[in-house]
């Protein structure tokens, strides 16, 4: 039987750099490696990822595998899957870490089924069980209403990590390691999915994921006009606007603004939640928020159970004055 050994972190990279989530993966991976007395390797896949191949070393990896080529220009499940599966079959890691992103959440299950093992997605904590030396994987379930701790009894153990749930490691650029190229050949004619085009909406101002202040609006905002006021407030506080699901579903705002379990994960210093009831799925998105301020007309709304400051009232009456007062302070 094959022996599984070591940890492999697949770093997706973004804009030619490691993403914050990539570094969180590497930090978590090195902790697990230390605990198991094994080593951490990183994997980069793309057209020109070789340029940053030494980056993961600075975050704790001792080896970096590079899979490069024009085939990997755009993300296509079946092509990336072949790359990842090849590296895994050649290196037999015990643990494979991916990010809970559009790519990670797409790859991890297919990879697990292909390798006849199992994946656990969207983990928020990982520890090693002292008795079995296998991972205990904590993940939110039931929309964040409960947490499950699971153990995978087959190897390799494949997991995706929720963004901002794990702390990034300190960068140490003096660290050395090995960089290994792995060539992957795929006949493009054999693929059954084809990338046609990408349509993106440019975000004006600060990105939600990076914002220090977020003003979120919920169903109670009632329409696109109300969001203009939220935008004004966000601008004054140098923050970004987010939304719960109903404003996105109703097209009052772009889908990209959805915060929550199936939207963006944010961790601002302050979040001002306006006319948001505080469903578990929505709150899953900003569990990292330091201070939550809630404005809601319903004193029983769940949002007040997690907020630090609250006003019970109609936002149409509360917000204009709130905005004016904040304006005075800032100017």
């Amino acid at each position, binding site marked *: 039987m094959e022996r599984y050994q070591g940890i492999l972190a697949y770093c997706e990279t973004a804009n030619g750099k490691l993403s914050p989530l990539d570094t969180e993966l590497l930090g978590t991976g090195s902790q697990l490696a230390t605990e198991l007395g094994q080593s951490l390797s990183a994997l980069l896949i793309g057209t020109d990822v070789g340029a940053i191949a030494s980056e993961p070393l600075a975050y704790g990896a001792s080896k970096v595998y590079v899979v490069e080529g024009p085939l990997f220009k755009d993300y296509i499940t079946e092509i990336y899957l072949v790359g990842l599966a090849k590296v895994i079959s050649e290196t037999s890691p015990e643990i494979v870490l991916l990010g809970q992103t559009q790519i990670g959440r797409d790859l991890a299950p297919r990879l697990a089924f292909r390798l006849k093992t199992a994946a656990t997605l969207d983990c928020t904590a990982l520890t090693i069980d002292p008795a079995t030396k296998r991972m205990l994987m904590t993940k939110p379930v039931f929309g964040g209403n409960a947490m499950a701790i699971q153990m995978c009894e087959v190897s390799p153990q494949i997991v995706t990590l929720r963004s901002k749930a794990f702390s990034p490691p300190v960068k140490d650029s003096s660290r050395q390691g090995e960089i290994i190229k792995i060539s992957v050949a795929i006949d493009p004619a054999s693929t059954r999915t084809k990338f046609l085009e990408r349509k993106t909406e440019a975000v004006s101002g600060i990105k939600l994921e990076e914002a220090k202040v977020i003003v979120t609006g919920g169903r109670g905002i009632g329409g696109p006009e109300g969001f203009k006021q939220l935008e004004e407030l966000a601008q004054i506080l140098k923050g970004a606007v987010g939304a719960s699901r109903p404003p996105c579903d109703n097209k009052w705002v772009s889908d990209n603004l959805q915060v929550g379990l199936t939207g963006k994960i944010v961790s601002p210093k302050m979040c001002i939640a306006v006319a948001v009831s505080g469903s578990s799925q929505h709150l899953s998105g900003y569990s990292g928020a330091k201070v939550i*301020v809630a404005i809601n007309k319903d004193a029983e709304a769940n949002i007040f159970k997690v907020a630090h400051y609250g006003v019970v009232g109609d936002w149409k009456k509360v917000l204009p004055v709130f905005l004016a007062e*904040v304006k005075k302070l800032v100017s």
Partner: protein
Amino acid sequence: MINIIVCVKQTTDPEAPPCSFKIDSSANRVIFPAGIPPVISTFDEYAMEAALRIKDKVGGKITALSLGVNLLRDVVKKTLSMGADELVLLEDPAFADGDSWSTAYALSMAIKKIGDYDLILCGRQAVDWDSGQVGSGIAEILGLPSVTVARKVEIVEGKARVERVIPDGYELIEMSLPGVVTLGNEHAAPRYPNVRSIMAAKRKEPIVWKPADIGVDPAMIGSRGRRVKLTRLFQSARYTKCEMVSADTPEEAARKLVAKLRANKVI
């Protein structure tokens, strides 16, 4: 004409108030809240809608497929009242408490038995365990291409054109058929069944299959087939003490709130 299979799951109502959610941590089980009926998992309804839109345009047959125990006919028949032509249930205690692997395996075997399919649609994740793997798992088991978390699916010249959600927009992917697509809430909202179709659905009986009907080894399905073990289920108390700011008028409350946030150096 295109034959579509839509996988749907009966789950607890995810929109029930958070305070109604209780677990029995000694048994690692969720206590189903009394008086709140189960529903079809949210994203599976989006998958149904995607199927119906394709059928409306190019014609075809929609088979809804659901695996579980104690499947309430009123709940699972919503697929029929929305417009599915057939409803197949994998209903047997042996199917219960599976993980993504054992569930995808049983569904794949049922899909093989249904046989004639061009497109398999699923929700991006079930709203109870939020695993998000069954669609991809079926694709891998059946050796099919897949696109996950789609906001639109169209059939163009015998192939699927799928808009795959990315953080700042979408990517258009062309997929040959047969294939699997999972849907997110970015897709057009599920339609409401009308009274006529609800009445018609009441008269139609689902087809029920047992493990033997789909030729599965009972050791590979349900809880016996699990590869992932649940070791603990708990609720994390994340409640804060909220400082409520009150005043005679909402305007005054707003002023007090800003003053308080300033005093506490929040803004």
